[in-house]
């Protein structure tokens, strides 16, 4: 082959290779993202509906379904690239508070929203400069308590970036005024609940890598720490997604019950007597159980079970569990078809 032919062949070959790679690269589809049920749920005050978030391509919308299962109904779908999560019913069931999450090149946003079911509108009562992660209505429905973090960053290479420096805030739903109730800048804070008498707040936080539950008076700074006693399989104390029973006498939470053959923690739901602090395992799914939510007028609760905890993406399902642990059944949900499918 002459030198001229060698040059021409090489240049044509390179151009072809470039265009083939360019075409192949543009055909390589972006990841579809996670599709499935979210972790957090809430039960309506009349125990008829379950509200949950459902992810489709990493964006989650809010749906409701009858607590015994059936066809899900779309509550509200966010704009593309945004997600609705952590729904909470108001005491009259007319409103659902939730968190709208999205991110830009610069930062992430976690904003508190309230969906009015009668008007079918979303209200933005505050424009928080930090990261609102969850909210809880007062029993009289006049206030909304919420957790807000100041920063979204990574303090540890294991956990990755997440909200930190939490405090509790209260918003008067009539006037819209917001006040800060704590000044803790806590590393973590979650599972905020208001006791049925409306006088105390309960939340989960951590100290020296051990989880703890705090019950504090709303009007004073007085608070006490609750440490459940029970047969847990983890060395450090893990108390996940605690929830108070409607009568305030019991608490449900999830913790490590055992480990599987690979050493992965198996989380089960526990119930604890608020007086004796004695915790007793109440589920035996041998999967990852999270987020217990009490029914308001029945002696049972709904938990979220993740069948793919050790895998990359969760595979959540919702289960009704009786408080005496004797009955359980899956809330089977038929999702409505997406438009255009």
């Amino acid at each position, binding site marked *: 082959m002459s*030198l001229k032919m*060698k*040059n021409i062949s*090489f*240049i044509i070959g*390179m151009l072809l*290779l*470039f265009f083939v*790679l*360019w075409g*192949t*690269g*543009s055909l*390589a*589809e*972006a*990841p579809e993202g996670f599709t499935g049920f979210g972790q957090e749920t809430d039960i309506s005050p009349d125990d008829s509906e379950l509200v949950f978030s459902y992810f489709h391509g990493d964006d989650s919308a809010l749906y409701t379904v009858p607590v015994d299962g059936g066809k899900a109904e779309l509550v509200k779908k966010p704009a593309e690239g945004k997600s609705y999560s952590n729904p909470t019913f108001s005491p009259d069931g007319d409103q659902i508070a939730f968190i709208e999450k999205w991110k830009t090149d610069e930062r992430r946003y976690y904003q508190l929203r309230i969906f009015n079911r009668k008007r079918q509108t979303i209200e933005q009562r505050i424009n928080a400069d930090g990261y609102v992660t969850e909210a809880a209505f007062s029993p009289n429905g006049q206030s909304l308590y919420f957790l807000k973090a100041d920063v979204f960053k990574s303090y540890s290479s294991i956990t990755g970036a997440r909200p930190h420096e939490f405090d509790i805030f209260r918003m008067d739903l009539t006037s819209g005024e917001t006040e800060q109730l704590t000044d803790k800048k806590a590393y973590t804070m979650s599972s905020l609940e208001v006791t049925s008498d409306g006088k105390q707040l309960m939340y989960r936080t951590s100290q020296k890598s051990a989880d703890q539950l705090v019950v504090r008076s709303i009007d004073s700074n007085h608070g006490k720490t609750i440490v459940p006693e029970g047969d847990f399989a983890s060395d450090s104390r893990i108390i996940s997604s605690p929830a108070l029973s409607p009568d305030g006498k019991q608490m449900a939470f999830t913790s490590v019950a055992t480990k599987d053959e690979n050493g992965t923690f198996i989380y089960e739901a526990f119930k604890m007597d608020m007086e004796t602090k004695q915790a007793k395992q109440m589920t035996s799914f041998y999967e990852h159980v999270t987020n217990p939510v009490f029914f308001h007028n029945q002696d049972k609760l709904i938990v979220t079970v993740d069948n793919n905890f050790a895998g990359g993406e969760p595979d959540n399902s919702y289960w009704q569990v009786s408080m005496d642990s004797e009955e359980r059944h899956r809330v089977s949900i038929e999702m409505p078809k997406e438009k255009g499918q």
Partner: protein
Amino acid sequence: MNRLKKHVQKMLEQTQSANGEREELWEELLNHLEEAKQHYMDEGLTEKQAEKRAIAEFGNSNSAGHQLQEAMYPYQRGLLYVMGIGTILFGVLYFVNAAFLQHDPIPVWLAIQFFTGSLITLAAINISFAGRYFYLLHLALFANVIWNGINLLTIQGSQWQIIIFGIYALLLVGMGIVAIIRNSYFSSNLIDNKQQKHGLVLTSYIVNLLFGIAVVCVSLFFLWAYFFAMGRSLFALLTVTPILIWIIIYKFQMGYIARKPLISMMTGFGFSVLSIAVPLSVLILIPGRWL
């Protein structure tokens, strides 16, 4: 052009020699062939038969040219091939990785990667042209080293992807620097046979190129700092002018190093400092553009 001249020309297409050296080789090889031709004509062959015989005895022009190249510039052409094809292969692997694992392929990046890799590969294919224009080969090598250096600093992915592609890019940068030093040294076309002088010249090239690497690093640091502090602007191009100034000065330094290796280390240092100082003073003096 007669058959003998064509044969010599084909041979010389495979060698990197600069113009002066090429003319000498041309004369020498042609004389050799002419003598052989004369010898066979004296033995009774016709002119045509004698030419064919002389050429056959001399060997295939391609392989003889390759042997000549390897004898005069050992491994230099191979190094260019490895660098060029290595750069192209890096482009293919990283682009496929970016497309299918990170879902963020950048075609413009691939185009630049292919362009720098292709330039070096074309230089290896057209080694005779590269030999006549040592400085152009220098520019192609500089561009390749700087680009692979930028790649090295901006690799994205998991820890293992960063380690594997990082080692790959580091090898390419290393090979590029060796190729530039060797190319500079070969371009000096030293006739002096003193081993000591050769060593000094080689050292001077290495020292001058280290200054060049420092200039490139400082410029790219200022470019990054400018983007970080001031955002994208045409004035940012001023931060890379030290590289351009240094490359232009190096064209004249190349010859000077061969003649005055010791002094040129000092002039190289001076020019390197100047190439950074001048554009940065301009940048600082423009009100509101910096600091």
